[in-house]
């Protein structure tokens, strides 16, 4: 028991603290916060705000990965849903817009889930199909243009604030709590972990593994569609060409940094979101640093490797530190 508990999450928190500290060094005003037009303003808020799409994606992705799957289509789904929201925004009320966008995300998730759970395709190719076609669908909706809108309701989703907290952050937090409540409050979490840990055994124990797989892809689609709506609301337009481009990799990275294995099984929602924040803290730090952009990818590579090494079972800093303590006990 002592073996597992204290280690979970410590590596991630440590990584976040170190990166925050580095950010503080490159940008002395990093922790400054003030209120601007009734909305908190500062680099920290930027980190949270910009981290929102990946955080939302990672909420869905972590469940998919827990079942031993992977969803490459989330970026494309973001684009589709953003496009739908933007094209409806000026002619319909927010509820309709949201329902349409989330509904589209749900359908995308169903499609992926159908391919994986019912047709038995390998998740990476199954979702590759929507990754390719989905961006096309999004562009079809916008006809390749950037569809702008001015509906204040939708704009509020991107730029508004609730008690000073930017709306996207509030939504991400809300989704984290909602997902957590659904997954851990019901038996879903256990059954998903069992499915990912050993699908055959779970099936024989009476777990509806197909339903589980379908459910996680659907949820992943819904999370992606929210991320897409927020991304569109943020720039007051749907950029089907670029919205969510390559974000699937960031989301997967966030999940893995959050300690969930790509081979399925145990997962942690909070740590996945923490992973997304680690990535964004690094990105914001890179932007603040003033280094030429040619260095961005190199920095990213080094940081990612460092964070992962910190968690490596073989090199875990904590295992190293705690081993002597443990041995000292009689």
């Amino acid at each position, binding site marked *: 028991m002592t073996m597992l508990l204290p280690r979970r999450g410590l590596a991630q928190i440590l990584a976040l603290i170190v990166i925050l500290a580095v950010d503080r060094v490159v940008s002395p005003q990093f922790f400054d916060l003030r209120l601007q037009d009734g909305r908190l303003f500062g680099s920290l808020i930027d980190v949270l705000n910009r981290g929102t799409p990946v955080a939302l994606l990672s909420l869905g992705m972590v469940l998919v990965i827990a079942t031993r799957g992977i969803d490459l289509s989330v970026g494309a789904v973001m684009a589709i849903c953003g496009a739908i929201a933007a094209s409806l925004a000026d002619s319909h009320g927010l509820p309709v817009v949201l329902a349409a966008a989330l509904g589209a995300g749900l359908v995308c998730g169903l499609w992926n889930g159908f391919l994986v759970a019912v047709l038995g395709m390998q998740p*990476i190719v199954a979702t590759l*199909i929507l990754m390719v076609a989905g961006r*096309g*669908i999004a562009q079809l909706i916008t006809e390749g243009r950037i569809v702008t809108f001015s509906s204040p309701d939708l704009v509020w989703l991107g730029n508004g604030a609730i008690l000073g907290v930017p709306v996207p952050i509030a939504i991400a937090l809300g989704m984290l709590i909602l997902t957590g409540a659904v997954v851990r409050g019901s038996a879903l979490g256990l059954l998903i972990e069992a499915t990912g840990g050993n699908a055959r055994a779970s099936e024989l124990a009476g777990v509806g593994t197909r339903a589980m797989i379908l459910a996680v892809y659907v949820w992943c689609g819904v999370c992606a569609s929210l991320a897409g709506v927020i991304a569109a609301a943020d720039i007051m337009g749907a950029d089907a060409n670029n919205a969510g481009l390559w974000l699937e990799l960031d989301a997967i990275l966030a999940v893995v940094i959050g300690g969930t294995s790509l081979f399925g099984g145990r997962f942690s929602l909070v740590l996945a979101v923490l992973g997304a924040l680690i990535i964004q803290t690094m990105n914001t730090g890179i932007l603040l640093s003033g280094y030429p952009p*040619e260095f*961005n990818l190199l920095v990213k590579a080094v940081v990612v*490797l460092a964070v992962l090494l910190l968690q490596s079972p073989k090199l875990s800093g904590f295992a190293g530190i705690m081993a002597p303590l443990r041995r000292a006990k009689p």
Partner: protein
Amino acid sequence: MKGLPPVLITAIVLVVGFGLCAMQFPNIASTRVVGNLLTDNAFVGIVATGMTFVIISGGIDLSVGSVIGFTTVFVALAIERWGVPPLVAFVAILVLSAAFGAAMGAVIHVFDLPPFIVTLAGMFLARGASFLLSTESVPITAPVYSTVSDFALRMPGGGRLSAIAIIMLVILIGGILLLRLTRFGANVYALGGGRATASLMGVAVGKMTIKIYMLSSLLAGTAGIVFSFYTSAGYSLSAVGVELDSIAAVVIGGTLLTGGQGSVIGTFLGVLIQGMIQTYINFDGTLSSWWTKIATGILLFAFIALQQGLVALARRPVATRAGAAS
């Protein structure tokens, strides 16, 4: 063993698809188009050969596209700016990329990290390094390049079997032999069957991991050289997304991403299927950017669904036959 082997099914899918395309655009059924198919997909074919080894061993290599990009820039700069003879530049980059792959393999093994993420970091690293070398595209004017890109075996009907297509075919055959006939190949399958088990059976898992990623990166480097022949230039943004293309080719070719099963021939068929989808869309020529993407997705789905359907069909009759016997 039971019914048709998956590779044969993939081949059937390819032939049927080709036939359908040729019915709509008779021009497709020409040696010229076939030659183009081989030339245009040479670098994907080479990379996918390496990727097949990695995936069969239960891993994945996302860095290959970036390694191609880095290679083209490195080769271009070495030849054009640093005055290195082309052959020396090739050897240098092959050594460099092999070392890069070995390093990734070592990290994966020693620190027990998921290949997906380690090679993702490798992808950032190689791409970032190529930006540092040069963000501009650098044309290569060395005479070898025009010699090689002009070289082609004429096929009947005006088709050209270019040098790079030949390189790809040679590597492909080498890959098939390496995987099928050598101890190394058997160990690749063993790793895919289960790392822990393979290790208990006496396979040097660490060394194998390093060698497999080394092979993949080495072939990515080779593909980079081929790409530089293809375009006579080095450019830091070249071959973005090729890792996904090659993974898709490998998987369409019947290799399981979970490892342990698959073949290089299947991968080659997968590359051709993807190339054919592209050719078909180009011949059609009426598709907008978005319809191109949607059509690619639909065709991808159709091929995979057809393949899975055929595999399922191929399995079924055996069960009933056995049933009839009992």
